[in-house]
């Protein structure tokens, strides 16, 4: 090629014999197979821990929003009706569920459901406990939120805000600057008005959606 054979000079000449295509394919195929195998192995190892954590989260949330029920039943929403039998779907996590909680004497305490709607900037997921006959809120818990740290995320940490909901009746309305009056007012958090209103909206919508379903379930159970 060039006459100058400088050892360290930037060699701009194209590689004289390029690697054959089958070799490139083989390299990438082997690398892909190896990485796929690694990912699947670690996924299998970590899956039980991940599922256990998710189940623990749900259990803790049901426990909290229904004020420590002695036990609870799980109802699955299939189509437009509730059923006690789990549908034969691969992933039960995606099916909407209602957790019906009872105290030690078998009296029904209320029902817990999860609901997700946009908050200030991302989907806000709550678990909501309420009494279906009256629409009275028992409590709520934030399962997932990406609200502004220090402002909107107070909906999760501000106990004064979270504490107001117990005993209030849906549909709730948010008020600013003064204490919320019974039966259905709650005071929004200063600096987190939008996130507070999102919580109120999600609770109202969830109760409006689940009440008729649960009433229908009660009628059929009574029949």
């Amino acid at each position, binding site marked *: 090629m060039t006459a100058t054979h400088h050892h360290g000079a930037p060699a701009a000449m194209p590689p004289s014999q*390029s690697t054959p295509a089958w070799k490139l394919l083989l*390299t990438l195929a082997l690398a892909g197979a190896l990485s796929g195998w690694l990912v699947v192995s*670690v996924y299998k190892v970590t899956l039980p821990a991940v599922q256990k954590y998710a189940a623990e989260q749900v259990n803790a949330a049901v426990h909290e929003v229904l004020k420590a029920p002695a036990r609870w039943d799980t109802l699955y929403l299939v189509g437009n009706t509730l059923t006690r039998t789990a549908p034969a779907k691969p992933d039960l996590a995606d099916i909407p569920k209602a957790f019906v909680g009872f105290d030690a004497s078998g009296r029904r305490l209320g029902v817990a459901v999860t609901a997700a709607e946009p908050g200030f900037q991302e989907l806000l997921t709550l678990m909501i406990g309420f009494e279906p006959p009256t629409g009275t809120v028992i409590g709520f818990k934030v399962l997932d939120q990406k609200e*502004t740290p220090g402002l909107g995320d107070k909906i999760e940490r501000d106990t004064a805000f979270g504490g107001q909901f117990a005993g209030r009746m849906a549909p709730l309305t948010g008020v600013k600057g003064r204490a919320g009056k019974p039966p259905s007012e709650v005071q929004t958090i200063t600096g987190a008005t939008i996130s507070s209103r999102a919580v109120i909206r999600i609770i109202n919508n969830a109760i409006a959606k689940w009440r008729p379903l649960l009433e229908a379930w009660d009628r059929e159970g009574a029949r």
Partner: protein
Amino acid sequence: MTAVASGPPVTAPEFVPGAPPPASLAADVWRGISRENPVLVQFLGMCPTMAVTNTLANGFAMGIATLFVLVCSGLLVSLFRKYIAHEVRITAFILIIATFVTLADMILAATFPTISKALGPFMPLIVANCLLLGRAEAFAAKVGPVRAVADGFGMGMGFTLSLSLLSAIRELLGRGSLLNHDLLGPRFEPWVFMVMPPGGFLTLGIALLGLAFIIEIRRRRARRAA
């Protein structure tokens, strides 16, 4: 940069164009922490630097996850450097990096689910951190596995320390706490904007200013001594 096909094995003693000059292992580690710090000097990985340094736990976890990926991908890239053809090296490097990022993501989700939730999409986005492909291409692909691991560890430590510093400042001023422990008491009104995106830029700017100041003082001292 002089990128040349590693191609078929050549009989000449190992000469890799653009290879880093020989150095002790300690120097390989120390470089990433100090003179070539990924965040404060090279300005790599700015996206996670801004996004997840709102609390110390998040910044530290992101740093450690990146360190894990840097060390593992550096080791693999170095081990396979002679078998990865020049034409597909970027694809192969990214594949290796993506694999370890996925592993780190899954391991974190199984061990520290709350931190994993807080880091959210930024965990899988480590793949797109220039630091990783940069070290694979510029260093790990050109040296033996021991040096590659040392370099990955140093760069990872540099990344972790920088992120921890930034996130400690932001959490302390923005929430009055460190690692969720209240430090400044109830009378301190948190500077909320510090944990929001503008606070990230401000903190990084001030950190760089401080660094430039230290460098300048050292230079003057050296000049006076000379």
